[in-house]
């Protein structure tokens, strides 16, 4: 096997459940810098926080798994009780910018300011150190990773050039790679005004997306990789869609080959040189 590695606890592959808690800032995935405080974007963002998040938290508890929530600082300001609840339930909280900035278009100092602000808001609210970083969807540059490293984050989970954790060559920063096909939101989110996605493609078939994820799970097992699932409560927490996560977790837990870990736990293992 080209890249099989030994995961902890005798496991042969790994699952990280990450949640991008963008609330209304998800609009900036499609339109960087757009005003998210109005219209369809605000309505869908709020509805994800109001209905999707409680359902997702309940499901994670039911399957006794811990997730990593990457949260823009301003979401913690807008929804403080929700973010406290996530922390209280024992999930990890990571930095996702302050207002879902397009970091790759900012000067290095402005990037640093955005990450500091975002992180400080999360830490002030939860009283816990924030050690993980995921780029707000958009673009970043090498300076972003330098800032992440300089600010003392222990890992980034942003890039797509691998399927197992690795140390970034120039900064030495740990990277827990992600891939779009394992992110629920781009398959399903839809809005009329502004058009989301911009071409207004129809939402995907839930059964078929679950099937894609089952292919990914088969591949994860076959090649011993890290399956880094990305969820948005707006999407997976919706009443019709939550079954997708239930079915997937049932399969993965029944199989017993995956080490299910948060970003922080993976980073700790990597730090100990165990992976």
């Amino acid at each position, binding site marked *: 096997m080209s890249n099989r590695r030994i995961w902890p606890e005798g496991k042969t592959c790994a699952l990280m459940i990450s949640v991008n808690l963008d609330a209304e800032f998800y609009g900036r995935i499609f339109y*960087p810098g757009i005003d998210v405080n109005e219209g369809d974007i605000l309505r869908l963002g709020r509805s994800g926080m109001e209905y999707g998040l409680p359902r997702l938290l309940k499901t994670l508890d039911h399957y006794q798994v811990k997730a990593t929530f990457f949260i823009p600082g301003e979401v913690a300001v807008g929804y403080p009780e929700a973010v406290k609840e996530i922390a209280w339930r024992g999930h990890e909280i990571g930095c996702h910018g302050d207002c879902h900035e397009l970091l790759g278009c900012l000067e290095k100092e402005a990037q640093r300011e955005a990450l500091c602000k975002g992180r400080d808001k999360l830490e002030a609210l939860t009283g816990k150190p924030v050690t993980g970083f995921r780029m707000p969807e958009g673009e970043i*540059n090498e300076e972003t990773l330098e800032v992440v490293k300089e600010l003392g984050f222990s890992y980034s989970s942003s890039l797509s050039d691998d399927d197992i954790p690795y140390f970034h060559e120039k900064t030495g920063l740990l990277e827990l790679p992600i891939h779009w096909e394992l992110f629920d939101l781009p398959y399903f989110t839809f809005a009329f005004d502004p058009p989301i996605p911009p*071409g207004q*493609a129809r939402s995907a078939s839930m059964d078929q997306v679950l099937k894609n994820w089952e292919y990914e799970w088969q591949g994860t097992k076959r090649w011993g990789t890290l399956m880094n699932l990305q969820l948005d409560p707006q999407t997976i927490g919706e009443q019709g869609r939550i079954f997708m996560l239930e079915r997937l977790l049932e399969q993965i837990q029944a199989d017993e080959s995956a080490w299910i870990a948060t970003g922080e736990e993976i980073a700790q293992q990597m730090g100990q040189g165990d992976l």
Partner: protein
Amino acid sequence: MIWPGKAMCALNLGFDLDGETIWRNKARRLAGGDRFIKGPSIGAYGPKRGAARILEILREFDFKATWFIPAVMVEEHSGIIEDILADGHEISHHGYDHTGRYGDSLQEQQEYIGRCQEIFVKYTGRPAYGMRPTGALLPETERWLYGEGGFLYSSAGTSGEGRGFYEVNGERTKGIHIPCRDEQMDDYVQTVFHSYPAVLEGMPRIAAYDVVYSNWIREVEGMARNGSCGSSAFHPQIAGTPGRAVMLERFCRYLADSREVWCATCVEIADYYRRALEEEKDE
């Protein structure tokens, strides 16, 4: 047309090892884009991980494929190029950096293509035998390519159903046409996604893998009905990721079990087709 082993069609497993090129080209149009690393990281997966996983799958079925590689990727990722060659695969022409800029005259286009050939010779020991262009070629360039330029086949994307000798404006060349139907046989078209810039335009959903897979099967069935040859445009940055590699492996198993399909490199298909057409002419 009957293919070797009494097969009804000839399929080339074609892999476009584009790596970072297509992502750099898209990002360059945006402010600050020449320093972006997220999009390019999606492309880098191909040479870094995907290609090796595909080689592993191809070894399992003893299939030889054709890898269309921009010359700059040959320069930047020479390690995986060596691995591809060591497994007996063909490496073919795919421009320098996946831009459409081939030049404005016959001479400029000849020079551009020639510069890539020099890189192939330097890194692989020989020039490419065939061509999957990434931009517009002038008719006179195409006539030269498949004539005195010595290229044996054309396997361009979105290239119709033309059979036998490749034609330029209705005029036959000495090259063989191995069509590539991107609507069906290009996994990037079906399942790539990125938000900034929007990839694909309008951000259509990532397709269902099962639907993508069954389209591959239907296309091969059509090739068999038609007795034709064709190539895929699978991308290691897509096809080599864990879930889609499972799908590729399933497709390879289907091909290995099928008596209707002769799986070969483009240069093998071109060579066989040319000899068959010449024998027909002699009879």
